[in-house]
């Protein structure tokens, strides 16, 4: 323990006397525009992302002004990275379609509409996922609002036709669509336990033909989710030097295998990592050691994460998730 105390003192001591600049005025300026979110949305996502990159670059270059008063030349929107949220999209596994968790930029709704979404943001399920392997089962203009009632999230749908399952949707997909919402909003709002659907203020007895009379808690992760899901890198992430990949899985003996394939599908790097657990009915986080891509020629590659194959030729092959990465 002594060892640990010395180490703790060294680490804590290294920043203990660091005096950050005061930012209360800037924070107040941002919170006083009713609805921070509205401010972000109104500013425009793409412009924001660029501005955020510029701001980070300025920090890197070491010329960030440090003043105790807010800098009038720098509007708040220039330093806010685009807000992100979690969404569950549908992708294919050897066992059929399942949900994959993805971190995505919040969509930019009409400000008047944004006010009707409290806490959860199911609107993200109306967007096209960045990863071409993923899709959403929800049409645009499906959601009208969300609110939290105790530990139940109420999702207000915008169209009564969503009660019926369209002919193009299988029963399994209809259930997955409902699970997309449950998983997404429960992930977004930690205190939420269950989800209820309504239209025009009245509870809906079914959505896409799936009974929704009672608030739904959703199926276990292992039933509805892919057993392998990459968190980082994101689709088309630019990497250089080395990067650490992260994700979640449920694989035999907590193992996950990764590989990087070039454009021809040849494996140029591979390795494995150990997740925080396996078995049970949920997924466990994994994190690779730093993956050194500095020897790879610049270009586009595929990062593949897969569970160990214990099928021995029988049953289903292991669940897999992929990302396109750009090595620079």
């Amino acid at each position, binding site marked *: 323990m002594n*060892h*640990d105390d*010395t*180490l*703790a*003192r*060294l*680490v*804590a001591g*290294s*920043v*203990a*006397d*660091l*005096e*950050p*600049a*005061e*930012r*209360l005025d*800037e*924070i*107040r300026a*941002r*919170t006083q525009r009713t*609805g*921070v*979110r509205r401010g972000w949305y109104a500013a425009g996502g793409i412009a924001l992302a660029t501005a*955020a*990159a510029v*701001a*980070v*670059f300025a*920090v*890197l*270059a*070491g*010329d*960030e002004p*440090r003043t105790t008063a807010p800098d009038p030349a720098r509007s708040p929107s220039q*330093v*806010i*990275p685009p807000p*992100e949220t979690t969404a569950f999209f549908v992708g294919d596994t050897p066992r059929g379609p399942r949900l994959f968790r993805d971190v995505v930029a919040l969509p930019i709704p009409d400000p008047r509409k944004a006010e009707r979404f409290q*806490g959860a943001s199911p609107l993200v399920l109306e967007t096209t996922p960045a990863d071409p392997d993923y899709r959403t089962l929800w049409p645009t203009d499906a959601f009208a609002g969300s609110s*939290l009632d105790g530990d139940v999230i109420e999702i207000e749908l915008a169209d009564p036709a969503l009660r019926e399952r369209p002919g193009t949707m299988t029963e399994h997909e209809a259930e997955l669509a409902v699970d997309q919402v449950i998983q997404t909003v429960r992930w977004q*709002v930690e*205190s939420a336990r269950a989800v209820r659907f309504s239209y025009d203020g009245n509870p809906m007895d079914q959505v896409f033909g799936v009974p929704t009379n009672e608030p739904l808690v959703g199926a276990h992760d292992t039933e509805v989710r892919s057993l392998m899901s990459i968190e*980082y890198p994101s689709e088309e992430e*630019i*990497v*250089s030097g080395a990067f*650490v990949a992260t994700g979640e899985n449920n694989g035999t003996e907590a193992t996950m295998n990764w590989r990087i394939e070039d454009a021809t599908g040849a494996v140029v790097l591979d390795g494995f990592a150990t997740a*925080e*657990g396996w078995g049970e009915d949920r997924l466990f*986080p994994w*994190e690779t*050691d*730093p993956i050194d891509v500095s020897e790879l020629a610049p270009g586009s590659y595929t990062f593949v994460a897969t569970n160990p194959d214990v099928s021995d030729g029988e049953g289903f092959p292991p669940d897999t998730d992929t990302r396109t990465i750009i090595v*620079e």
Partner: protein
Amino acid sequence: MTHAETGAAVTDLPRWSADAALDELYAAHWRRLVRLSVLLVRDVGTAEEVVQDAFVAMHGRWSRLREPDLALAYLRQTVVNRSRSALRHRAVVARHAADAQPAALPGADEPALRADRREVVLDAMRALPQRQREVLALRYYLDLSEAEIADAMAISRGAVKSHASRGAAALRTLLADQLTGDL
């Protein structure tokens, strides 16, 4: 304290508005949270942005947090998450910056020795895998319990334990000179 007094204390909890909560929590925790973030992202300017964003997010969420303890837990969680994404954004941007090292730290009038030691410690922290770094920062700087760290990082207590022991072992090696030196 009698039972009746306990009850009174509970009902008399300050009913802060979001603005009042922001002021109080800022006064009490701004510095510590920025320092925590510096241990994670190394750069002070980035850390200030991260924590500023976390306070704005907390303000927007106050109606659902309502209690200072919950708000602080939320702030910690948000600072850890946003520090992680700040590093990702920076990794993307870094390719434009050639060899630009993150501006180590401000403090022109700081004693050089202290600034050097800070850089050595922050470099060592950056060399650790992300989760080990997060666990150690929460443990060594904020002095959080295993359960609080598990909560802030949304991982199990067992995982906290294993990241802490692996991280501490790695950090001890990286900082061997400092540990045997002039402490």
